[in-house]
């Protein structure tokens, strides 16, 4: 057993002061220590993308980082998307376009899409498809997810204009 490290994480603007073994992954700490169970642990080796969160705006796999490495960064999870009772445009689009069935992969897709649309609001359809291929969904066949993200991208662009 390793010694415990004092770690301060900032998730969705809230500060969590924790004592952790350095070996703990970010996804496990977000879920088990911070109680934010919206971020899902799927494959736990970086393939499925269910655990995708934003780290200083970058979409990353929370299972491929140790929590101690996220100290000093702004972490965003699916819980931080909605503004109170008002859902984020991506969340609304996923509902409207059947972007989910069982919902297990949804938090990862939402954070992946948020990350890419915030960085590249004018991303081409072709590149968007490549980006969405990063995460796995075993229900929808992806068509609903692609439609939802395209619709949200258009809405976000209109809001910017």
């Amino acid at each position, binding site marked *: 057993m390793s010694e415990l490290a004092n770690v301060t994480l900032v998730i969705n603007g809230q500060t969590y002061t924790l004592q952790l073994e350095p070996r703990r992954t970010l996804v496990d700490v977000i879920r088990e220590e911070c109680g934010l169970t919206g971020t899902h642990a799927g494959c736990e080796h970086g393939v499925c993308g269910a655990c995708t969160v934003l780290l200083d705006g*970058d979409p990353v796999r929370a299972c491929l980082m140790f929590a101690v490495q996220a100290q000093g960064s702004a972490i965003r999870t699916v819980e931080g998307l909605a503004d109170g009772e008002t859902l984020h445009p991506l969340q609304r689009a996923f509902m409207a376009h059947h972007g989910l069935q069982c919902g297990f992969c949804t938090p990862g897709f939402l954070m992946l899409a948020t990350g890419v649309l915030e960085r590249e609001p004018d991303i081409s359809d072709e590149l968007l498809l490549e980006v969405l291929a*990063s995460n796995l969904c075993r229900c929808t066949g992806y068509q609903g997810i692609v439609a939802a993200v395209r619709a949200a991208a258009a809405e976000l662009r209109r809001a910017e204009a």
Partner: protein
Amino acid sequence: MAEAVRLLAELAPHDGRILAGGQSLVPIMAFRLARPAHLIDINTVAGLDVLTVRDEVLHIGARVRHAAFHRLVQDGTLGAMLAAVVRHIAHYPIRFRGTFCGSLAHADPAAEWCLVAVTLDAKLIARSARGKRRFAARDFFQGAMATALAPDELLAETRLAILPADTRFGFEEFSRRAGDYALAMALAVLRIEGGVIAAPRIGVGGAEAMPRRIEAAEAAVSGRRPGESVFREAAAAAAAAIDPIEDAQTNAQYRRELVGAMVYRALTQACMPDGRSRA
């Protein structure tokens, strides 16, 4: 940096390892295939984020992530080539953590950056408490997941010479699904002078234990007019030259044919009239 190499010198004999992006090492740890006793995280080490052109050389520090190459890091063929290649590396979120130098140090046979490094004769700078060592990329890779790095050394920087302005390139990769490991890939870098191919470099990766330039393929196109028959000769030469990896799904013959196809397509792209690959 001094602290990182001092820690590495101290911990390397006790199964200590460098942690950069962690996009290969951490999955291997998740499978318990690697169980390092100590990890030395270099993600906050100052100076390792250098990504600049100095004296016609692109310097890439140890914590420059793949995603840095999504934009053109250099306004020329080298920048365009790196931006075209990066789109084949794993998936988008992986590229925000994984690093260029980490990929070289890991030396997966299917790693795109390793192919780029050997094809362009990259210079690699290793640091340790003992000092600095320089390697040519072709001497650095020693087999699948094997490099010339000593356990107490970290790959601090990779240097790529800026390519002459009229240089053209083509990159082709075959994998079963987007983002999967390459079963074969080829990078062709050349110029066309007076209607004939000059200074060709043809590198093949993913098909052998480590990437390398294929001299027989380069000889097949050098000084020749670009065209289908010349590309086919180079493809056949590359297919014959390699010592293919075999696995449960792919036998040697399959990989040879793939290598031929990749070399043919990479050359076709490199010699297209506008000189740029489709990115």
